[in-house]
């Protein structure tokens, strides 16, 4: 059977741009057709903005790569039209076990809160995510949206100007030039665009290597996240086992720093390691093997004039905590409505600076959490290891030590409490839905709240009578709020009115706003 990642999904085709006498000017060009680039393009197209995606390849990612997708990422995917496919195909999991040596240190259950459309996490190979995003691009094209995907198109030079950005693109049929008002590089941690522009990418390198193997096997391991500190089959190091769809299992084995990378990736060296872990009698096939090191670093600024970096191109974290692809989709979630508003003339360019401010804040939070996990998993000093082992020894019998065990703090959305787009609140409401937080889902009498908010400014009123809202603003009135909605939005108050941004973050909330209050809060949320 041919694997999806071996099939060209967007093979090179000659574009009329290549025969134009003067470079054609586009609105937005996205560089890179990975999950982040494709999400950006779909989001912009859904906002009515023409967009061209260029990628030097023509296939989805080889190997599973990102596998763990968070609730917030799934909620964004709902907005992009692929949420159902992800959840149907993905493996939903809640339970995990942590082992210390040969013993189980403790088991946990994420105990997901009820009253949300989406689960806390699913596991799914990155190539399926990319395939569904490409399908969604095709669907939008069939509906007449101006969204184009150019495979075999490699950006080889970039020039920034006051009014536009010029790009030179290499193809098998030679080079051509285009111009664009805005460009979104989503070309990964090694971002060639970032290098061509000479931008910084500072941070911390962790001196360690991890073997990552996708194994196809019929095994009766449960659908749980298993993490080992110092297991007998990988002494002094760590290991992870996690289930994906199609009987594919992700295995991570820490290798240490002084290794021969090429040698470790050879099947004759990988297979004995896996036999030691899984048992000699377990039959398996290797789907994908890689050895990676990791870094925690970010660009100082994600916005460079008309160039707006997103995803790993802008920030890189260690994989513990699932904060890579999940944060990349939160980048484009934050960016695309702002860019669409600027292009449509509904907001000034300074709104794009808040993309920088908010997503730099989120990147710092992700880097902090993933650095701490990495320091716990791979202690870098003798005393650090002594404390780590003391935590694990205590955790077996003592509940108090368990929160200190850090095998990855799983991704949750950043709260932009200090964002300039928030309006000061009046009234006393639950902390979790304060201005700057992403909307908490809840059931309503007409479907899930997040589905009703959608991707435009929306004013929700629960409990109280609906206020007057400015013309053209979506209004959601919930006369009989569910218990979940009451707990998450109202608390002890008899009612609340909440203003959601198009990325479903909360911009303002009141007890009883006037139409003027709402108009002012929307203007502020657009950067005025």
């Amino acid at each position, binding site marked *: 059977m041919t694997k999806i990642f071996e099939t060209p999904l967007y093979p090179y085709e000659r574009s009329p741009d290549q025969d134009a006498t003067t470079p054609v000017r586009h609105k937005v060009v996205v560089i890179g057709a990975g999950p982040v680039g494709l999400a950006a393009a779909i989001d912009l197209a859904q906002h009515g903005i023409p967009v061209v995606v260029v990628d030097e390849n023509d296939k989805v990612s080889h190997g599973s790569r990102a596998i763990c997708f968070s609730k917030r990422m799934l909620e964004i995917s709902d907005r992009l039209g692929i949420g159902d496919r992800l959840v149907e195909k993905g493996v939903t999991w809640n339970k995990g076990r942590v082992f210390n040596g040969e013993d189980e240190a403790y088991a946990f259950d994420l105990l997901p809160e009820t009253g949300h459309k989406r689960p806390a996490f699913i596991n799914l190979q990155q190539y399926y995510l990319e395939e569904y995003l490409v399908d969604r691009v095709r669907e939008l094209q069939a509906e007449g949206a101006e969204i184009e995907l150019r495979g075999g198109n490699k950006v080889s030079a970039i020039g920034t100007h006051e009014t536009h950005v010029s790009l030179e693109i290499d193809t098998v049929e030679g080079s051509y030039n285009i111009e664009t008002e805005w460009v979104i590089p989503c070309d990964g941690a090694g971002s060639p665009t970032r290098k061509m522009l000479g931008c910084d990418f500072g941070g911390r390198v962790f001196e360690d290597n991890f073997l990552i193997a996708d194994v196809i096997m019929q095994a009766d391991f449960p659908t749980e996240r298993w993490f080992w500190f110092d297991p007998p089959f990988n002494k002094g190091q760590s290991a992870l086992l996690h289930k994906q769809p199609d009987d594919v299992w992700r295995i991570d084995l820490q290798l240490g720093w002084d290794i021969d990378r090429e040698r470790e990736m050879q099947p004759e060296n990988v297979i004995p390691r896996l036999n030691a872990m899984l048992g000699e009698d377990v039959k398996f096939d290797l789907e994908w093997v890689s050895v990676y090191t990791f870094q925690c670093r970010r660009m100082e600024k994600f916005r460079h004039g008309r160039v707006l970096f997103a995803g790993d191109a802008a920030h890189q974290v260690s994989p513990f905590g699932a904060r890579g692809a999940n944060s990349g989709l939160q980048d484009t979630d934050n960016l695309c409505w702002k860019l669409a508003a600027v292009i449509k003339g509904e907001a000034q360019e300074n709104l794009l600076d808040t993309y920088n401010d908010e997503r730099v804040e989120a990147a710092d939070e992700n880097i902090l*959490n993933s650095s*701490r996990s990495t320091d716990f998993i791979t202690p870098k000093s003798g005393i*650090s290891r002594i404390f780590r082992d003391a935590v694990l020894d*205590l955790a077996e*019998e003592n*509940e*108090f030590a368990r*929160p200190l065990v850090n095998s990855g703090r799983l991704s949750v959305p950043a709260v932009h409490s200090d964002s300039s787009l928030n309006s000061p609140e009046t009234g006393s409401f639950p902390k979790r839905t304060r201005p700057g937080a992403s909307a908490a889902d809840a059931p309503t009498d007409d479907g899930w709240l997040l589905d009703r908010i959608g991707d435009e400014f929306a004013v929700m009123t629960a409990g109280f009578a609906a206020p007057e809202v400015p013309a053209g603003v979506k209004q959601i009135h919930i006369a009989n709020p569910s218990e979940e909605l009451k707990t998450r939005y109202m608390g002890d108050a008899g009612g609340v009115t909440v203003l959601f941004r198009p990325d479903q973050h909360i911009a303002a909330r009141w007890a009883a706003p006037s139409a003027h209050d709402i108009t002012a809060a929307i203007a502020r949320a657009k950067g005025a």
Partner: protein
Amino acid sequence: MLNTKANIADHDGFYAQLIEAHEGLDDAQSQALNARLILTLANHIGDNQVLSEAIDLVKSVSE
């Protein structure tokens, strides 16, 4: 009575600060720092019964 339930709000922040405090110290210096820290925290706790329970607890943990 010794509290054996989780009790530190920002446990990750505390742990990171604890490890950072040892940065650049050799083994003897780290042991000395730990001793000072234990004595300081013990004074804050103050209750001999609680301190005795804590010592018994950590002595019973198998490595």
